């Protein structure tokens, strides 16, 4: 009937153990019995039980203490306390301690049957929930972290291997390579994924603002601090804090950060209460922290504390193979967000993209595609929709004189050789313009 559910009966009375054993065996459960709490704990060292029925009054350790020990072992067993002496106090205590239920001996067979059936369905639900969570986890992907090149595969492998640990990670790479996406991928695949990922852009904040941002502040800590405010470390409790542009923080903040990383505790600005928070740190920088340490601008102890794992994201020019995939991804992304039909890209345009250096990396490519979709014909991205395909400024003019001659010619033509208006447009007097016309031998073509 319920062959997957295991039950442990803990009672010092032989008759109770035997009766219940027999009852549950007939129901098809996997049943075991222990004559005291000590024996039960020994059995729990070697195997788990879904349901534990424990007598409250036993020589030595009682049922309530056994329940506390089971909880301390972090076992997920459902504990049902049995007693021959019904008292509200013990019932309340058992339930406060997290017992599933409390039953008075002797049980009504129907009540016992219902109790076990309900506990079994709760276990089934929990198992189903776990299974679904696992399925969701395996499907977890982070948008935009796209690529099949060897370089990006190596990054993804590193993300996968580091995600399940609690190690601090430094993500390095040029601007626009997707450092924050990698941080999101690590968080989304870690056991902290159901808790927040809090991002702080250290480079955008002054020292005092960053301090308040990270640690929070108490009301009245400084002018304008009219309310208590939680800091980012506090908000990241249970989750991950992502410190972008870590290389920009001041020496004072480096010391503060080191202390917080070591103790996982801090005090809000203007406060005196120690706050603890369980967070994982992921940092990102586009600078060479190693050389900053050597030059003395970044603390060595903080560097080693943060740099447990280093993931370097290659620039886009080193993974040209990923450009077609990224292009299709961004086309899909922006066509969807703009509610447009899916479009394609002409081969010539794609070829030009593959040749481009992309100093702004993936972010630059993304912006190009978004712009091309906006200005394009709605069917295909053409080379002319991309910055490298647009008409370049005429660079055939080599000397300044030549440039001046052409410009004056254009202005005179525009104003139909009206010298006064042309001179005003050129912001010179008429005499100067006449001199230039003579110098360059310009003639009015009728």
């Amino acid at each position: 009937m319920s062959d997957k559910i295991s039950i442990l009966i803990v009672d010092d009375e032989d008759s109770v153990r035997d009766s219940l054993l027999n009852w549950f065996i007939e129901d098809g459960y996997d049943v075991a019995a222990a004559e005291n709490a000590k024996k039960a704990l020994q059995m729990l060292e070697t195997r788990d039980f879904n349901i534990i029925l424990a007598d409250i009054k036993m020589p030595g350790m009682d049922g309530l203490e056994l329940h506390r020990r089971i909880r301390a072992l972090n076992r997920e067993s459902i504990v049902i306390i049995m007693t021959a002496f019904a008292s509200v106090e013990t019932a309340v205590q058992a339930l406060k301690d997290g017992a599933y239920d409390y039953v008075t001996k002797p049980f009504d067979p129907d009540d016992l049957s219902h109790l076990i059936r309900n506990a079994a369905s709760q276990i089934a639900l929990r198992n189903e929930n776990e299974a679904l969570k696992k399925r969701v986890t395996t499907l977890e992907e982070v948008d935009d972290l796209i690529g099949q090149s060897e370089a990006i595969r190596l990054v993804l492998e590193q993300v996968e291997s580091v995600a399940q640990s609690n190690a601090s990670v430094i993500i390095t790479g040029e601007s626009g390579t997707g450092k924050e996406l990698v941080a999101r991928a690590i968080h989304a695949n870690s056991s902290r994924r159901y808790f927040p990922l809090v991002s702080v852009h250290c480079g955008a904040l002054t020292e005092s603002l960053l301090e308040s941002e990270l640690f929070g502040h108490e009301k009245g800590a400084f002018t304008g601090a009219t309310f208590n405010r939680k800091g980012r470390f506090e908000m990241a409790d249970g989750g991950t804090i992502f410190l972008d542009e870590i290389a920009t923080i001041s020496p004072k903040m480096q010391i503060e950060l080191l202390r917080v990383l070591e103790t996982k505790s801090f005090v809000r600005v203007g406060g005196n209460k120690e706050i603890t928070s369980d967070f994982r740190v992921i940092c990102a920088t586009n600078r060479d922290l190693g050389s900053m340490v050597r030059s003395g601008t970044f603390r060595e102890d903080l560097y080693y504390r943060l740099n447990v794992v280093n993931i370097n994201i290659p620039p886009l020019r080193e993974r040209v193979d990923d450009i077609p995939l990224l292009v299709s991804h961004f086309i899909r992304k922006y066509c969807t967000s703009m509610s447009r039909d899916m479009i394609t890209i002409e081969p010539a345009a794609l070829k030009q993209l593959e040749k481009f250096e992309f100093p702004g990396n993936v972010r630059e490519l993304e912006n190009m595609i978004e712009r091309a979709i906006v200005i394009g014909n709605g069917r295909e991205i053409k080379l002319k929709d991309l910055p490298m395909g647009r008409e370049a400024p005429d660079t055939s003019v080599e000397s300044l004189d030549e440039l001046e001659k052409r410009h004056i010619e254009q202005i005179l033509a525009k104003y139909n050789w009206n010298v006064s208006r042309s001179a005003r447009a050129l912001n010179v007097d008429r005499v100067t313009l006449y001199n230039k016309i003579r110098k360059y031998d310009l003639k009015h073509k009728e």
Partner: protein
Amino acid sequence: MEEKRIILLSCGQFDRAFLKKVALAAEAEYRHAVITEECHLDLNPFYNPARRQYDGDRLLRHIHLCTDTEHEKMIGLFRVDLYIPILTYIFGQAILGKSVAIASVFRLRNELYGLKQDDNLLLIRTIKEVIHELGHTFGLIHCHHQACVMHSSTYAEEIDLKSSTLCPACRSILADGQK
């Protein structure tokens, strides 16, 4: 190997016709000869005055001692209210896969629940209970099929919901066990 027989032990002055019908039903279900025997067991030692009930565990053990476990299965049928220490009452009890079982008609009677006496319903409930407990002696556990006689019943009306026969799955387990 000698065929096992089933003894239906009458421990409470039951009507012969009643016993016969129960025996025939059990015989039809298990394809073993079912013999009814009278037993004049003194129930006083099994009485618990505090609970005003009879100790099912001890009765079961007592019957076990009187059984030739090699060649027979025995089910004692009682009129008295049975209990086991942990439960307020039982309809019957068996030792899974062994040779003995007990059952009582006490809580199967309609009158106990303030209803009109119904001898036919009592017979049907008794047949179901006897076949159910004998099923345990053949190693069958409770079945999730509502109509199977091995479905667990904790109150009398629940017995009425199931049939008096084994479902195909339990019958198949029984056949495998008897090979």
